[in-house]
């Protein structure tokens, strides 16, 4: 479709629209409310984006591999509840690895269904969203979980600690982003994720074990979810069963905003981080403008639609096309 590339403003907007829109947004917000670009506010936004960001890193693998993961929100609730519950029963040192194992078992289960059985990832993870929610409620008996002795444990370090003034959630987000960025861009596994998402059949014809690669992307995603659950639990030291509810859409919005293609085969960790920050700043800006937080649900949805449109527009080189 290269021959249909439009020149001029429309084409530029189609390719760089997200960055342009972001810049306009930032400037408008900064003019409207100088507090927006206050260093404390900026740090606050990044910090509050960290949990979402960690999850988005994992979902980036899944999306580049050509699939979706809508289960991450309820899976994060599961991780949070499980680690809080086990904390008081077996202590943090055992609770954390147990929670990671249980969460990644869920990821492996999804990986088997989508990778090896080749079931549609939308259906599987939508189903898992609901099933894991039920699992969490069954596990907790519907009760909120709280750590009994909040002062006598080092567990708070992941959510509330800081190193050299930088909050731990930001450090963990940054560290995981760097590691996963290297995995995706520099290792044979990363290359195979792009190959499988770009054209699964051609990847198979090149000897790439497609099922195993897809399986692995869900394992990476569930590892990230477990990390997010750990930060969440550590930050609040107690939780409702629904703490991650709705996050799957925000995560997806961030990933697509970053430019990972919903069709698979394209995207980077760096771009996802940008997507996470854009989403975080827009939501923060709207809050500062005095918009009620529930208005964010509407805004998030609009952003997803806009991002998907621009994704398609960039592909065909025009905002609108007669044929595709």
């Amino acid at each position, binding site marked *: 479709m290269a021959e249909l590339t439009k020149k001029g403003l429309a084409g530029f907007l189609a390719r760089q629209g997200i960055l342009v829109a972001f810049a306009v947004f930032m400037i408008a917000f900064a003019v409207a409310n100088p507090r927006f670009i206050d260093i404390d506010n900026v740090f606050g936004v990044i910090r509050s984006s960290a949990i979402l960001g960690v999850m988005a890193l994992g979902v980036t693998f899944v999306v580049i591999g050509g699939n979706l993961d809508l289960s991450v929100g309820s899976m994060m609730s599961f991780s949070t509840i499980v680690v809080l519950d086990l904390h008081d029963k077996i202590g943090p040192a055992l609770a954390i690895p147990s929670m990671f194992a249980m969460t990644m078992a869920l990821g492996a289960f999804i990986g088997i269904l989508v990778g090896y059985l080749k079931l549609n990832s939308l259906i599987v993870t939508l189903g898992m969203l609901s099933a894991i929610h039920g699992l969490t409620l069954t596990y907790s008996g519907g009760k909120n979980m709280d750590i009994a002795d909040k002062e006598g444990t080092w567990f708070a370090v992941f959510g509330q600690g800081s190193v050299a003034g930088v909050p731990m959630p930001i450090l963990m987000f940054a560290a995981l982003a760097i590691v996963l960025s290297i995995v995706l861009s520099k*290792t044979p596994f990363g290359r195979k994720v792009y190959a499988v998402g770009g054209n699964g059949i051609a990847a198979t014809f090149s000897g790439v074990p497609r099922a195993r690669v897809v399986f692995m992307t869900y394992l990476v995603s569930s590892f990230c979810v477990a990390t997010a659950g750990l930060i969440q639990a550590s930050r609040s030291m107690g939780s409702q069963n629904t703490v991650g509810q709705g996050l799957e859409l925000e995560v997806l919005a961030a990933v697509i905003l970053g430019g990972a293609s919903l069709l698979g085969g394209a995207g980077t960790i760096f771009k996802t981080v940008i997507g996470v920050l854009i989403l975080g700043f827009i939501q923060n800006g709207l809050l500062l403008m005095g918009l009620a937080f529930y208005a964010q649900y509407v805004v998030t949805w609009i952003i997803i639609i806009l991002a998907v449109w621009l994704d398609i527009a960039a592909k065909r080189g025009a905002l609108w096309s007669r044929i595709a």
Partner: protein
Amino acid sequence: MTDKTPALRLEGIVKTFPGVRALDGVSFTVMPGEVHALMGENGAGKSTLMKVLGGILAPNEGQIFIEEQPTIMSSPMNAKEKGVVFIHQELSLADELTVAENIFLGELPRKSFGRVDWTTLYDQTNAILKTLNVGFDAKKRVGDLSIANQQMVEIARALTVEPRAVIFDEPTASLTDAEKVVLFKVIEDLQSRGVGVIYISHRMEEIFKITDRISVLRDGQYRGTLNTSETNEEEVTQLMIGRTLDLSRAEVTHETGEVALEVRSLSCGELFEDVSFTVRRGEVVGFYGLVGAGRTEIAETLFGLREPSSGTIHLSGEEVRIHSPADAIRRGISLVPEDRKGQGLILGMNCRDNMTLPQVSNLTAGPFVSDGAEVAIFDQYRDKLDIRTPGWRQTVGNLSGGNQQKIVIGKWLSMHPEVLIVDEPTRGIDVGSKSEIHNLIRELAAQGYAVIVISSEMPEVLHVSDRIIAMFAGKVMREFTADEVTEDSLIQAISGIKPDKVA
């Protein structure tokens, strides 16, 4: 011809895209009742011209005339209403609907209250199908038809209006020789009804068989029109590529070595049965047969994409079991698949990454992919195969068909296979690249590779093979050496006719 009104006339069509003049003043005329070939290498502007004609793109300059009336095509629907209809290379039918529903899609005959008038629909459809002389009826589900018959449905769809010009875009790309005969008959009928036919194809043999005139495009420019009866392949080729091309077979003399691959009584369900053959080093074995004869399925079984139901595979004398493409690659079997874009390449990936994909796990420094090792492999095979690309970062989807195919071939040569299987090596590739790939296959054999070539084009099989295995309905009918094979005996064999003597 001059005393008749042209069915279709294009004058000075210009279409520019940023940085490219895709069409640069193209003019030509199609008379009623003539078959007019439109030829040109990939990228010469044929598809852009057809998009202009079909109302998908608006020209920057120039004018289209239908029966000398200046016309503007505003959309594909509009073009069809004006009697210009397309039979596309890639079919655009709804598999789940019936033949009749597909043909009258969007314009189903109605009764009161918007109910579909099924009786009229089926009657009208069957009337059209009758003129096409096809062996299926209006109520058949399109998904159950063969590709050739689906194409007939497309043609039937074109005939629901009174067409003035019908454009066939690579119509024989997925047809067998027998099916082509049926198609050519249909074209002949259109011709006798006074319809102007534009026929786009890379296949010289067909062009010379059925067309009256040939117009050639090169680099977006009109290069002239020739009367088919007064020209020859060399002249047309020269016009297309701007240089002469040696079409005769380069005789490579070489010794064949020991047996690289032996297949004994291999069967796979109902796809193929009791297939036995050998391939020696330094030898090209061609597989020829109709689509569905089981050739591609044999290749897929050897490559670990299908599990054989019985029989054995031996590599250099040793029996092997192959359960996945990874197994096959490890054992030294490589497959250049028939569907280049669907199976051969990841179009959104760059040239280098596509080429090194099967071995990326081995091209590592520590846990990381080694950039240097990858680029070295790419450079080596780019030079060896003369792949024309601005650099390894170029996205494969932007290359021409011929260069794309060379990337796939390079991918497998860089694995140093024992056996190289090439399925439809030149499908959809322009004539210049085609002969390059044929020469390459001969060269590979000369270098000692054991090569299997599967092709639906008889000239190609005859051109590159040392031995030819003719298949029919999943069985090997006969094996020919290059010396003894004739076109007639080959056609007999793939049509299931037993030879006089036992092969």
